[in-house]
């Protein structure tokens, strides 16, 4: 009896150990699976078609043939990308004159507003709309065509807003400001293969539209993720001393 009971208890201990080991293995397996899934999901980001300019006048502005207003929804929300809308909230230019809206009336969810005129003065605006914002900007195009940073921090601000290790998707109202921004970044050394001119908000018909203008004609600018460039806190460059 004693022999039997001692072998029973040994069996019980062995069985418990077995269960403990099995549970340990299961927990380990679950952990490995979770970690693999997280890693796998991170790598699952789809490939983005290489920047290719559209045909026609859209191509003249540099709007992309594959990643544009019709397809951008497929590329939203990526951890490896930043999304920038280059319009002003309120443009001093009279865009009503050419059938437009001087107010930013809406945007695509995920896009953050960094107005191009705060980076550099836009060129080639139609005469009919008059002048856009002409205040301080990070860069100036000199008479000889070269780019001059107006502040010590100019390049760093661009590096922060348009990180070079990310894909950069640019948008505006019709594709013009986005095209100018891409050209500027490329001129400053950014990789053109990582920047897409998505085109104009007007053409967007996807599922991520956020309206700023309501039915009564009021504008809800608080919905916009807006990057303020506080020029008063920047250090102006003095070229004579350089």
């Amino acid at each position, binding site marked *: 009896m004693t022999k039997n009971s001692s072998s029973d208890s040994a069996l019980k201990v062995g069985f418990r150990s077995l269960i403990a080991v099995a549970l340990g293995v299961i927990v380990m397996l679950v952990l490995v699976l979770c970690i693999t899934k997280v890693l796998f999901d991170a790598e699952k980001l789809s490939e983005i078609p290489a920047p290719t300019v559209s045909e026609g006048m859209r191509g003249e502005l540099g709007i992309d043939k594959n990643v544009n207003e019709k397809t951008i929804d497929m590329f939203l929300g990526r951890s490896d990308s930043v999304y920038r809308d280059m319009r002003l909230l309120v443009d001093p230019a009279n*865009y009503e004159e050419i*059938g437009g809206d001087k107010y930013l009336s809406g945007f695509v969810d995920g896009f953050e507003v960094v107005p191009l005129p705060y980076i550099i003065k836009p060129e080639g605006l139609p005469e*009919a709309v008059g002048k856009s914002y002409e205040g301080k900007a990070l860069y100036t195009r000199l008479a000889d065509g070269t780019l001059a940073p107006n502040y010590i921090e100019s390049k760093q601000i661009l590096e922060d807003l348009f990180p070079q290790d990310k894909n950069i998707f640019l948008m505006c109202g019709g594709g013009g400001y986005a095209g100018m921004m891409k050209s500027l970044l490329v001129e400053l050394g950014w990789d053109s293969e990582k920047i897409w001119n998505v085109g104009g908000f007007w053409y967007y018909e996807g599922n991520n539209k956020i309206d700023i203008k309501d039915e009564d004609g009021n504008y809800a600018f608080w919905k916009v993720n807006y990057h303020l460039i506080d020029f008063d806190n920047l250090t102006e460059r003095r070229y004579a001393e350089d």
Partner: protein
Amino acid sequence: MPKTNSKTSNKKLIIIAIATLVVLAVFGFVFYKVLGGASQKIEVEETLLLDAEYKNTDGQQIELAEVSEDPVATLDQMFEDKKSFVLYVSLPICNGDAAKFKQYVLDFQHREKVSFYYLTSDYIKDSLVYETVKYFPSVIIVKEGKIINYLKYDSDEDVEFYKSYDGFSKWFKSNVEY
């Protein structure tokens, strides 16, 4: 001797005549290319004969939003009534040649004393036009309620028609008689 002389002078005359003809042919070809090329028409499948009400006007465009409280309904009704007309739809473009396109269209109407209907892009997505034309600005030619041609903003072939007054004029005159 006099016979030989006359033969020689005949030969000279023939050579001069041939040389003159060759020079004239070359000049003619060059003139045809330079002058004729400018007025050369683009081949189109169908043209529109502009209705009298849109010819010999003051050259002002007819703003649908001003003549109608519901410009989209008015435009769609014009299609249903099988009317023939020209429609210009603008889209604000902030730079480049497309930004100047509106001025070419306005100047053309003024100089040629013709009138187009005009609508801004705000309305167009709700209209029948948007089923066919997706990119703007564009000029759309409607014959008996059917779009027979329009400027394609997303086509390489139409780029030259957007980029200058002459380019637009050439395209329009190839599509519309007035």
